[in-house]
């Protein structure tokens, strides 16, 4: 059970990483327009080029 003393901090580090990633996504405007990207995926079967960022 003493492994928990290692695992728990490790998982917390992962969570911190996750939160950092989420913050980065929010700040780079990825949550500003939630509808258009979903639309693009649905209707572009032949176009595999990435769109302008």
């Amino acid at each position, binding site marked *: 059970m003493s492994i928990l003393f290692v695992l728990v901090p490790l998982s917390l580090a992962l969570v911190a990483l996750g939160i950092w990633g989420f913050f980065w996504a929010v700040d780079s405007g990825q949550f500003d327009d939630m509808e258009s990207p979903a639309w*693009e995926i649905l*209707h572009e079967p032949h176009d595999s080029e990435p769109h302008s*960022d």
Partner: protein
Amino acid sequence: MNATCFHCSEPLGKSALVARIGDRDESVCCAGCRAVAELIAGAGLEQYYEMRSERPARPPISGLEADAWTAYARSEIADALVVGQGDLDTVTLGVEGLRCSACAWLIDKVLSQLEGVVSATTNAATGRVHVEWQRSVLTLADVMRAIARAGYRPFPPGDSRVLDQQQSERRVGLRHLAVSGFGMMQVMMFAVAVYSAQLQGDAIEPRLLEFFRMVSMLVAAPVMFYAGLPIFSGALRSLSRRTVGMDVPVALALVLAFGASVYNVFDGNTGEVYFDSVTMFIFFVTLGRYIQMSVRNRTTSITDALAKQMPSVAHRIQENSCVDVAVAALAVDDLVLVRRGEVLPADGELLEAVAQLDESLLSGESAAVRRGRGETLSGGSLNLGDPIRIKVTAIAQASVLAHVVTLLEKAQAQRPRISAAADKASTHFLSAVLIAATLTAAIWAWLDPSRAFPATLAVLVVACPCAFAIAMPAAVSAAIAHLARLGVLVTNPNALEKLAEIDHAIFDKTGTLTRGELQMQRCIVAEGVDELQCRQIAASLEASSEHPIARALADLTPIAPVSNVRTVVGAGIEGELAQRRYRIGTPEFAAEMHNGFVRTLADPQAGSTVVVLSDEHRVLAQFELQDQLRDGAPETISALRESGIASEILSGDRQSVVDILGERCGISQRLARQSPEQKLARLQSLQQQGHRVLMLGDGINDAPVLAAADVSIAMGRGTALAHASADMILMTEDLAAVPAALQLSQRMRRIVRQNLFWSAAYNFGSLPLAALGFIPPWLAAVGMSASSVLVVLNATRLLPRRSNAAQVQIRATDIPSIIATSRAATAGLAS
């Protein structure tokens, strides 16, 4: 072939135009649609037609002229908009006509294909396009022209402060949600470990217990001090105002719980730790706030609406030349040239003998208005006739248009807040809660001190009216989503509740009950004359005119070029075609050409506008034009009547036309020749009589009434200012959505009442239980969360149903577009 335009889905009418798409010909309704369709095909972007979910706006023809955008090539105007770094120029423009995400995709694609463009991103939700290009290859004018060619009108965005603020609110809210959500899940995880030992009756290893408690504290700290910050600042704010807001008991509970828990962690392993309750509490409160905020932030920006109506470039006459300047640079007494088909950039005194204007932006009636020398013309009017010069009398803030906008902003700011009464009630309730908590603490401290703290905490947590606060916004969100499916875009969520209490409806005529366009009702030709030839002659003569009558007549391909065209204001057009002179216009004007008698071939139908075509010898044809009633209008009126809602028409048009329309719809109460002030007065007298009034309109002249009505609906193709001042926008222009929206609002009111009842029952019912110590704090937090969830689930009953599996297949792809439509027009884009 199908009878609608391939590009914009408008009825084809008599148009014989075709666009060459790939290897086939498709029928289109006008030159603008043809140009855009061929552009899309030529660029290989036909996918747009498969992807899109909404008909696009009819491409503005004036946008296709190269001239319209050259002014933006001049550095002083471009510099104000463009940010440059090295060879890279960047601009953020507003775009008009975005109907759905496919439009955003199209604009991005068209721009990316332009040589020199580095990147183009269009945000359908805010209506902004962000473009980066190489300065050495392109100018701002080229970029704007490319957007216009795709069928969308770009404009310099107005003040974007409100949008920016909403965006930052949303981002901050998401960050808080992330921290509190993750924190809550982690702490719950540790709590489960600890509780499971307790449930089994086993003793957990002391080191492990201490470890879990410390780790819980570590994780709960950022949740408390970062995500919980709005709660604390809200509590302090309301306390400084000497009121007890909803945040006060919450903040108190949080501080007590967290403080006690931290103390217990360092005070050995005894005593309860409440980190799980604290984090869960903060998460659900943050979630509730986020929902409320996103519902609140759907309002339309009026400054954007104004920015769209007015041109940004004016032709100033300096010395002997005409210089393009930014409208912002105009001063009073400047001389400005306004060409045919252009919008007046400011109020001005007419310097020509006569001018023909379309003042529909202000009056709602598109019949051409004649103005004489010395009269003051309004900025925003469209010049239908020959180029005119005006002397500027009022610019920007002082113009008539800006004045109307100011009135609107004031009206919007004064919209009654429904929560005013609710705020007062909650203050009393919360004060009572605080008193109850203090009593609980005091009594328990006397009876059995060890139970005082948990009981007090439970009282504070259980009494938090979170579910109560979510009751309304959750139902409103669901109703808004359902209304979007019906084609109604809600921009003022407060209006939904009022919609259920409507007992009187006012309709504008032109553009609301009718389509707003003149259409050919009847064509009578003289003996021996070919009707088709007459139509083509009429189309050729009217081809260069912007007059609304011309639009109805000019839908056929001209047979031959017309020479010696002369426009007589208020009368008609004369021209030569194939060596013969013709006149088309009022019967009097046409009659002057042949023998002076006023002649029509037959008595015109009541309410029609009569246009006569004649040559040098006789009258050739008589065209009768009428504004068509919308499909389903009579049914809508009778459906409203069955719901107990009386309807009436208020219009600026003539009484005879209004009477005929009223009879067709079944509306007996009609008032014609109404100015905007008169319409407003009528509305206010109805309101003073105690009626709750619903207003439907589309023009700027309707805007003050739309803002003052209890609930207002603007037509999807109405002016941007009408959109900004209305509570809802009818995107599909299908009047049948109005009775449906009414029914939905009544259902919503029922569900809100149910929600309020249950959440109040929970609060009041569990308060005594918590005070008596039957509810441990974690159960209190769970109960509060559960009641919030219950309220939200009840609200989802308002969402649109999918009745069978076959429909589900279609609907699944509808949903993104419907939400996109509602978001895309949030800034009042559709016009």
